[in-house]
């Protein structure tokens, strides 16, 4: 096993190809948790409907968090719901990603000032990978958010510590 760990530090042929393959596999079959909160969930449904098809990118809504990789937090996260979103995130198996869709889950949205029951941004509870602005964001914006996430996964690497996105 000497060969492997010696060569592990910088890239060589062995590491990059398997890494690209795994990254490609991970980014081309992101299964989302079928989980919508508010108005953004309707736009998410419209995105997975026929006009702007999510399935083209390999994204299928899975009912149970155990089998999904990406959780699209679509809608206002209230304090009562925040604990559930946190538990849902923890139940997902490991290479998992979060897309925060809509300004409500980005930073509290129109309810930031007087919403006593609204959590000002889902990143106070779970780490977010991609923020999609808009209230509600258009389906194209959500698709662009998904492509941004796919770019991020494409350059993920187990060796380089600070994976600077090219």
């Amino acid at each position, binding site marked *: 096993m000497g060969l492997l760990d010696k060569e592990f530090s910088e890239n060589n042929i062995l590491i990059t190809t398997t890494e690209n393959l795994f990254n490609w596999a991970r980014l081309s079959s992101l299964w989302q*948790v*079928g*989980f*919508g*909160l*508010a*108005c953004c*969930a*309707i*736009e998410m*449904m*419209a995105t997975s*409907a*026929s*006009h702007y098809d999510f399935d083209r990118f390999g994204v299928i809504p899975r*009912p149970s*968090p155990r089998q999904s990789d990406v959780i699209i937090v679509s*809608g*206002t996260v*209230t304090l*009562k*719901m925040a604990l*559930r979103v946190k538990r*849902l995130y923890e139940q997902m198996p490991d290479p998992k990603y979060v897309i925060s869709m809509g300004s409500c889950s980005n930073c509290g949205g*129109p*309810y930031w*000032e*007087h*919403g*006593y*029951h*609204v959590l000002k941004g889902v990143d106070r509870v779970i780490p977010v990978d991609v923020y999609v602005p808009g*209230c*509600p964001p*258009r389906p194209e914006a959500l698709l662009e958010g998904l492509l941004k996430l796919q770019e991020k996964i494409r350059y993920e690497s187990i060796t380089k510590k600070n994976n600077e996105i090219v």
Partner: protein
Amino acid sequence: MSVKTEEMVLNMGPQHPSTHGVLRLELTLDGEIITKVVPHIGYLHRCFEKHCEVMTYPQVIPYTDRMDYLAAMGNEFGYVIGVEKLLGIQVPERVEYIRVIMAELQRIASHLVAIGTYGADIGAFTPFLYCFRDRERILNLFEITCGARLLYNYIWIGGLSHDLHPDFIRLTKEFIREFKPNLKELNNILTYNKIFIDRTANVGILPLETAINFGITGPMLRASGLRWDLRKDDTYSVYNKFDFEIPVGKGKMGTVGDSWDRYYVRVLEMEESIKIIEQAIAQLPDGDVTSAIPKKIKPPVGHIYSRVENPRGELGYFIISDGSTSPFRVKVRAPSFVNLQIMDELCRGHLVADVIAILGSVDIVLGEVDR
């Protein structure tokens, strides 16, 4: 020897594929038969009434959109009628007609989502996508008039934010011409589908007296056999100028007031809405839509209860004004909030699969339930 059976509490939690959002149903099961249903709501409480006390009158309109996000035009309509009555403004004819067209288009779009998700809950996934395909065409109509697809801020106090797009009329006629065959196709796939009828007929029967006592309104009340529609019984805006009839549940496939009736009333209502839109387009007068918008909105002290027939039922705004530029208190009577109370009555003695069918036929939107 009686076997000691224990009841199981099943938690249809805030995240469930068919609770239409973040509703938690606590079912107490005996085997698969339901003995008690306790709905837990509040997971989407966005403090609408607190915002009304802080914002001025026109600033509240975008928040009314976000209550029932499937029928945003209807929410604005109700609120704006209330404030106009407080101010005593008379709105030009053209604005009234455009508001009716927008409200009816929004009713079709909202019913399409209700029917689509109902089919998906029962298991047929394709009608859900056919409904969304038709709904996309309506969203395009909304988008060319006011720029937004779902939450519009289009109906202002005293008028509208924009006039109609030049070829809005042509596109609407086109949509109506293409929507009628689609509706027939939808009926063949879902309405007269033997399995769909088995799953929904005689399921969750709602007798008329309990419906009235529980304050149920909208398609659920009409499915139980009562011809009660605010557009005809408590006429507002220019609805009295159109002739359309109110579909009522007749128990074609089971008893009156079962889930199939509630579904079928919505399908018939869509056909009625098409009639209204056709007549409204024919009689659309000209004029300026922003002429009656007041510069300074300071209504006199007083309180008013204005109500509107939303796709889910009677949406009422109880507005109390203390003479300042922002409302003292706005209490919203949300139809889904009231209709959801009946879940316990309806689901008793049914199976788990029926709870989903009944919840689909009750058709709630959580933004409106929790406000």
